[in-house]
């Protein structure tokens, strides 16, 4: 079985983003970028499945401007076998990305797609579910456990109430949550090797996909700021303030 792993390049999770002065978006110039943490977990899972012999080939794919190749190289260094770069400078929305990925699935015929449950920039949490819908496949969203068993896959999902176990018919799209695994760091030799692994480049037009945005971003602003607080000297003062000043406890 082949596994397709879509990955996204985002602002590094440790960076506190700044809103641009003209309210058109957030500052991305000279900001550290990295692979979306959930995508790293997806790559790790696919590579582990290959190491365990359940999977023959791991294909990483991304869509975006040419710099997004960096994330593909990271995936290759972690153990993916080859990569597909869908190059575009257009604004991409989850629905458009799902359509692009569907076209890649149609070409490649993977038995499973493993991807992050959300990207930490747009926080949309949509693309995997959308891809699954467009393919008419089963969907395992927010998983913390994946076990392939013949022509089905047993998953555990992190839901608000606790944990839900499902059996999905293959082929399936599975989106991963934080506790599925801990991604490895790519070693230097593997980073070097990754440079020689194959990377195909295509475009939305080549794939025959219309990615025209459906949503107009009117503005991007700062969230409401909190007023500065005070440091209290001891527990007794804290309780007094909560009772008599903030009046949030009785």
């Amino acid at each position, binding site marked *: 079985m082949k596994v397709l792993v879509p990955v996204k390049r985002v602002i590094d999770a440790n960076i506190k983003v700044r809103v641009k002065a003209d309210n058109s978006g957030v500052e991305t110039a000279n900001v550290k970028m990295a692979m979306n943490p959930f995508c790293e977990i997806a790559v790790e899972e696919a590579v582990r499945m290959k190491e365990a012999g359940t999977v023959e080939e791991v294909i990483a794919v991304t869509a975006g401007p040419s710099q997004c190749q960096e994330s593909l190289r990271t995936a290759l260094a972690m153990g993916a076998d080859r990569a597909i770069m869908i190059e575009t400078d257009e604004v991409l929305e*989850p629905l458009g990305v799902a359509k692009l990925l569907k076209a890649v699935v149609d070409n490649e015929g993977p038995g499973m797609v493993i991807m992050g449950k959300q990207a930490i920039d747009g926080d949309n949490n949509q693309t995997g579910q959308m891809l699954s819908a467009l393919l008419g496949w089963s969907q395992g969203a*927010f998983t913390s456990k994946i076990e392939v068993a013949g022509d089905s896959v047993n998953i555990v999902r992190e*839901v608000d*109430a*606790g944990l839900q176990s499902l059996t999905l018919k293959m082929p399936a799209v599975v989106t991963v949550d934080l506790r599925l695994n801990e991604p490895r760091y790519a070693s230097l030799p593997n980073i070097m090797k990754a440079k020689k692994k194959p990377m195909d480049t295509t475009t939305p037009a080549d794939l025959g996909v219309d990615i025209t945005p459906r949503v107009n971003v009117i503005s991007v602003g700062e969230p409401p700021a909190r007023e500065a*607080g005070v*440091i209290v000297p001891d527990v007794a003062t804290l309780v007094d303030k909560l009772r008599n000043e903030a009046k949030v*406890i009785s």
Partner: protein
Amino acid sequence: MSILVVAEHDNETLASATYNAVAAASQLSGDIEILVAGSGTSGVAEAAAKIPGVAKVLNADSAEYANDIAENTAPLLVQLAPNYSHVLAPATTFGKNVMPRASALLDVQQISEITAIESDDTFVRPIYAGNAMATVQSTDSVKMITVRMTAFEAVAEDGGSASVEAIAGTGDAGLASFVSQEVSKSDRPELTTARIVISGGRGMKSGENFPLIESVADKLNAAVGASRAAVDAGYVSNDFQVGQTGKVVAPDLYIAVGISGAIQHLAGMKDSKVIVAINNDEEAPIFQVADYGLVADLFDAIPALDAELG
């Protein structure tokens, strides 16, 4: 045209998040209808019909909807959506699972987790863990939307008397089957609706120390939450996690104990009315959002707080 709110429930009770989604719907123009899709849900449909301002409840009661399998519920939404201007669901793991699936089948770009409504087609939503707020306008004919519950105050539960109309099921898609659900049982208030939340982080050092904050929680009738680090370390289960990728809470009082205040944690609690931070590192970023900070060892401060509360 009318607005459809997709109810969240466990086949027995209507989830509180549904009332927040109805609150958001009431800011749009049009009648509000509620869809209750489940199995053995007549009680839930009745509860939905009692919400003031609701014009009609659609009850799709059929075995394939028993466990919120998105592959089964999405076709029902696809069938209904063209009759509505908007379809709203709570931005919980329920709504986040099924809504994008239905949206893609409708060829609609969903708007996720809105926190404000500017007009019938323009909405505000947090991006980058809430460090920026985007105002976005949808050009799709049906607006598919998930609603952040903390941003819309729940509507009243009683006072209405909408009609309930039974609608047929769309059948089992045969793609996914339910195996089991592990639900954490607790007598404490629900994390996302509690008036007071006390959360523990890595500073708690072990799950065995959580009873320290549980005892305080019981005195304050508070819910207990946790940081990702505390969940990853196995101190508590995943449903306790507050943050960008866990639950979003906005209680009257949030007490962060042994939590450093990473961006991803703040994303889930910084809209709380009053924030208290207890941490022994005065440089911890949590103090920047705290109304009241106590620089102390939690293993002294929490027992002292417990005693002070009597």
